[in-house]
């Protein structure tokens, strides 16, 4: 993309096509489908955090009137360890997945499913759960991530040997993997540093907190095909995961994605979906299986609690001389925390010569973690960006200036290896420095902090189809559930290429049998990668339109040009342009219906950077911290629908503020989650937050025809540190642990006296 392209549709703010259904209550989400003869399923969950299952007897439940099926892991094939690609693109072991869906001989967290029932109504199903007899041999649980690494810690898996250490350890442990990223010579770097700090940070387990609980409705036909309706970020992923867990051929499963009420990474795996299918196959009736909120909190993937140690040294001029990091991430019951992306992203915004990052993936008796928006990065950035703030303080440098002196630019080498193509990090720092917010006066008890964040953004596989209708409008078909306005963005890109108003483009999300394969909606990839597929498919349609025009005009196709929704003839003859409508009207005589399709593995996802400014105000009597002003600056490549881009930034920031100030899973010593509800797991409400200002910096991504880069992940990365840095400047107290909840803040304030 040499010179900035002029767009007519991309960059505008039309009303989203699916909006009407969503403001009138017509839109159908996961739990909104009912089928004739449908049964209701419920899941029996472990009442212990760590135990052997000696015996399960489902028979008493089956005797209850109205109960139609009971399943335990005895009803399911045992599957061998097999690694595949998970929803978050990270590795998944299907044996672990299968055991997470339904425990086999051991339960590994409080809430781990052990059986499921289907009955004619939810109350009978609930009663039936109480009749299933489970005999447990209770084991000591381990919850804290550092404690789980101790040599005498209770073992979750006796066949887990740490990967990434040479030679392979001889005894199993709770440490699933160790990774190292290293460059230069940190000892030499520290020797050259004028200031060196060493700090320890802690973050707690937090949940994505989507408002819609997981829900699935399965029905099975006489030919053995199960049709599953569910709310998921990845219908194709659900199909393949269910096929693995149930050992059914892919062709026996069809997934229809419902509207989805939030996911943030949390709906990129399966929980109730295979159970609903199995129950429906057992009972020969449709089965609806919906989690309640408590189940969502107890048993679906949150993100890791972490323990992070940072040693950072800098020279007087502010250049970072060396950084040494130890990251320990709790994976929950099975390996697979986001420590790898945590390690890769933590210092990605900076040019570093001497760095060593060591990361550990550790299992504990909590639910298996799942992706959460920029997985692993927020905690790592909390540590890195807090440490940078302390360095700036010590060197009496403006914190944005310190970052500018170390910032990566186009052509810089990323800490994880490759060099960056066109990126806009410096632009975000400069925009933040020039923003009126940065110089606005502060009131007493207020402080201002800044922090930055990075995310790779994903490409992966997408398929899209574009079909022209008889009246000259277009239908854009994709297979990626729309979680926050992606349909309208895809429609805008198609409208751009066709040169017609976006109102004449209908975007739809298809099921797994109506469109080719698509990876999950996640990693900020849909507008980028599926958008690319839509553009390719639309360009194919435009080529066909030109060909049809050439046939109508009886001229060579080279003489036809597509402009503003019309074919123009360039051979000198005065021919009136042919509109899309007109060409379609004649399609029956020129070769039939016009449609295009594209399938691709998208490469060249442009990395995203953000810089945030946060003002907090502290109530010195209660320790309550209020964010009073917030500005998020981000390089978004090209904002296809700016309102939804702003919305991504605002939503990510709000989640980050909740993480910084309130949210944490609180467990008792037996591993029972004490705050499994929205009353006690307190996500931000409207009165907790200010308006969240956004600044969209647009440095086009050269690898995307419209310059798009992913935007959804980056905004959750900086807020933890931005809030902590602001709080330090308001109080003079540095907080190394989130959440900075009122009791912790009060304690910190008292230590100051």
């Amino acid at each position, binding site marked *: 993309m040499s010179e900035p392209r002029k767009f007519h549709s991309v960059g505008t703010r039309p009303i*989203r096509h699916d*909006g009407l259904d969503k*403001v009138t209550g017509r839109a159908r989400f996961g739990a909104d489908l*009912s089928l004739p003869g449908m049964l209701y399923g419920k899941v029996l969950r472990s009442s212990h955090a760590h135990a052997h299952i000696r015996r399960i007897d489902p028979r008493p439940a089956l005797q209850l009137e109205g109960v139609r099926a009971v399943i335990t892991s005895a009803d399911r094939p045992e599957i061998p360890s097999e690694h595949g690609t998970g929803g978050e693109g990270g590795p998944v072991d299907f044996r672990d997945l299968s055991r997470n869906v339904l425990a086999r001989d051991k339960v590994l967290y409080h809430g781990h499913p052990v059986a499921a029932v289907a009955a004619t109504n939810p109350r009978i199903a609930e009663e039936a759960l109480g009749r299933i007899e489970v005999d447990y041999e209770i084991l000591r649980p381990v919850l804290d991530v550092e404690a789980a690494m101790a040599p005498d810690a209770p073992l979750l898996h006796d066949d887990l040997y740490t990967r990434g250490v040479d030679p392979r350890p001889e005894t199993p442990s709770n440490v699933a993997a160790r990774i190292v990223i290293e460059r230069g010579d940190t000892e030499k770097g520290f020797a050259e540093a004028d200031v060196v700090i060493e700090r320890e940070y802690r973050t707690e387990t937090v949940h*994505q907190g989507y408002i819609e609980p997981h829900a699935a409705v399965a029905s099975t036909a006489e030919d053995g095909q199960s049709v599953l309706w569910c709310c998921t970020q990845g219908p194709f992923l659900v199909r393949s995961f269910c096929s693995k867990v149930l050992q059914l051929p892919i062709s026996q499963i069809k997934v229809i994605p419902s509207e989805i009420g939030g996911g943030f990474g949390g709906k990129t795996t399966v929980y109730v979906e295979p159970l609903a299918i199995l129950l429906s196959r057992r009972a020969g009736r449709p089965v609806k299986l919906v989690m309640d909120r408590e189940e969502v909190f107890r048993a679906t993937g949150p993100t890791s609690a972490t323990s992070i140690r940072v040693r950072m040294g800098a020279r007087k001029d502010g250049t970072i001389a060396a950084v040494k990091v130890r990251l320990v991430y709790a994976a929950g019951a099975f390996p697979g925390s986001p420590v790898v992306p945590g390690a890769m992203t933590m210092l990605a915004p900076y040019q570093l010569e001497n760095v060593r990052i060591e990361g550990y993936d550790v299992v504990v008796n909590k639910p298996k973690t799942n992706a959460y928006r920029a997985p692993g990065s927020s905690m790592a950035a909390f540590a890195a960006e807090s440490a940078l703030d302390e360095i700036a303080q010590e060197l009496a440098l403006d914190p944005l200036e310190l970052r500018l002196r170390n910032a990566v630019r186009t052509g810089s080498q990323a800490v994880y290896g490759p060099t960056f193509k066109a990126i806009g990090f410096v632009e975000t720092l400069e925009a933040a420095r020039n923003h009126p917010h940065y110089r606005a006066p502060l009131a007493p008890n207020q402080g201002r902090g800044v922090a930055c964040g990075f995310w790779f953004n994903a490409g992966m596989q997408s398929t899209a189809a574009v079909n022209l209708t008889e009246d000259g409008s277009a239908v854009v078909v994709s297979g990626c559930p729309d979680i926050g306005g992606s349909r309208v963005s895809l429609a805008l890109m198609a409208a751009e290429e066709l040169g017609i108003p976006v109102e004449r483009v209908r975007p739809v999300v298809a099921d797994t049998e109506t469109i080719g394969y698509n990876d999950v909606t996640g990693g900020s990839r849909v507008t980028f990668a599926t958008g690319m597929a839509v553009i390719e498919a639309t360009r194919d349609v435009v080529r066909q339109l030109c060909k049809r025009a050439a046939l109508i005009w009886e001229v060579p196709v080279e003489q036809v040009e597509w402009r503003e929704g019309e074919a123009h003839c360039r051979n000198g003859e005065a021919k009136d342009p042919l509109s899309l409508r007109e060409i379609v009207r004649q399609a029956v005589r020129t070769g039939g219906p016009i449609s295009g399709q594209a399938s691709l593995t998208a490469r060249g996802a442009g990395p995203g950077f953000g810089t945030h400014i946060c003002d907090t105000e502290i109530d010195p009597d209660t320790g309550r911290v209020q964010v009073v002003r917030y500005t998020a600056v981000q390089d978004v490549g090209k904002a296809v629908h700016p309102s939804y881009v702003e919305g991504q930034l605002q939503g990510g920031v709000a989640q980050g503020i909740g993480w910084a100030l309130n949210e944490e899973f609180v467990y008792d010593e037996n591993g029972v989650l004490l705050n499994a*509800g929205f009353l006690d797991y307190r996500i931000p409400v*409207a009165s907790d937050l200010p308006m969240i200002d956004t600044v969209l910096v647009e440095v086009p991504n050269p690898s995307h025809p419209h310059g798009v880069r992913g935007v959804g992940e980056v905004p959750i990365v900086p807020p933890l540190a931005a809030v902590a840095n602001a709080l330090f400047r308001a109080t003079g107290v540095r907080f190394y642990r989130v959440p900075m909840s009122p009791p912790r803040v009060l304690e910190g304030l008292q230590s100051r006296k």
Partner: protein
Amino acid sequence: MARKSHVSTIVNGEPIEFLCDPPQTLLEVLREELQLTGTKEGCGTGDCGACTITLDGRLACACLVLAVEAEGRSIGTVEGIASGEHLHPLQKKFLEEAALQCGVCTPGLLVAAKALLDRNPQPTEQEVRYALAGNLCRCTGYDKVVRAVLDAAVEIGGESP
């Protein structure tokens, strides 16, 4: 099996009768028996506001109301906010200003926001924030929601003489 109870109510202005089990919540009956699935369940414990309805004009969490309690009362749900083909100004502003992302909180927010504007046609930003504090939205950070409500208030104010 326990006998079903017979309940007569008015839903969005229309008389409706249904049979229910005594322990069933109004939320379950609205969704599973009457197929009015616009009212959502986010928690079932009165903490998220996704199930917000009006009961005789006052806001209630349908998950905390027993279906039998609806006897003789008038229920308002998101399905009743638009009048026929005409969207309520709140619905229009939510669409124009992108006040929804996933949209699962939207029905509850609309019902709560309408109740606010019905009793306080010109709320301040702070009043809007407090009035909606019982309605969780995890996607938007509330910025665009609050703006949409404030702008709808202006539009409604402009319409009436």
